[in-house]
């Protein structure tokens, strides 16, 4: 799931410029449902917002396709949308965008860490439920995590610890239940 990150993230570090896919779009103000729907999908994809009605993702087959279909959906909702392949004008520009995306994901991972911390004080059943829910959440975040921040590993560890606590707590119970 982090595969798409390799090329642009690496290129952002080394200074050579990555390829990006851009979606330029305009939607009628009313009805608002399609606008909200598109906004939600863009959030889910983790796009960089470059301006009013202009968003970007590091280009790969998957992101290209995601923005293509979104463009289609916008057109069906009476809007106008075009999809572009682009390289940033400078490495500094690209770094700034990548950093903003990294920071956005870091905030999401921190929210997971906080939820794991709260759940850790609960009972074993609650911890197991929380671990499952937070793993789904981590998976969602990872899909839009093109420039992984340090918080990613911390969040995984925090969720894994919930399971580990539960397993440790469950072991004596199993022993007690024996003959």
């Amino acid at each position: 799931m982090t595969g798409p990150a390799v090329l642009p993230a690496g290129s952002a570090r080394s200074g050579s410029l990555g390829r990006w896919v851009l979606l330029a779009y305009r939607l009628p103000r009313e009805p608002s449902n399609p606008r909200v729907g598109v906004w939600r999908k863009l959030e889910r994809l983790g796009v960089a917002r470059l301006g009013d009605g202009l968003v970007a993702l590091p280009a790969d087959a998957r992101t290209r396709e995601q923005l293509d279909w979104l463009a289609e959906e916008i057109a069906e909702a009476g809007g106008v949308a075009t999809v572009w392949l682009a390289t940033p004008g400078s490495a500094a520009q690209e770094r700034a965008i990548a950093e903003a995306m990294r920071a956005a994901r870091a905030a999401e991972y921190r929210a997971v860490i906080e939820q794991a911390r709260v759940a850790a004080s609960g009972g074993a059943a609650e911890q197991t439920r929380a671990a499952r829910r937070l793993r789904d959440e981590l998976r969602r975040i990872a899909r839009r995590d093109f420039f992984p921040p340090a918080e990613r590993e911390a969040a995984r560890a925090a969720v894994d610890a919930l399971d580990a606590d539960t397993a440790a707590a469950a072991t004596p119970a199993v022993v007690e239940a024996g003959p």
Partner: protein
Amino acid sequence: MRWATRAGVHIDRAACAWLLRRFIDPEASFVFVDDPAEVPAEATAFDMRGVELGHHGGDCSFETILGRYQLDDPVLWKLAELVHEADLDDERFDAPEARGLDVVLRGLSMTLDDQQVLEVSGPLFDGLYEYFRRGLLLGREPA
């Protein structure tokens, strides 16, 4: 009949090709293009922007084709949930197998060309169809 779709076949296109050949056009042949403008005149395009057999109203192309050809086989619609989640992952359906299927197709697309992906994934979809068929008959997961 000739059918055209985008090169770099993944889950939705592989599933659509299987569906077309198995349920709509046994003689189907497929051509893969990089740009919608390259679709041959006599071919019907699917899973591309701006065509009838594409994504519409939040449906993936597999669902669109099922609707368009009025295929009401419940097994196919069950399979469609899996394809939808593997392709779009928008949690419209509960299909935990989707992630695995997505990875399998992603891997195949790395080692095979498009024509080969269709050849290899065909029996995979045959198997999934049979699995869901038995599941619907039994009302539980088949052994």
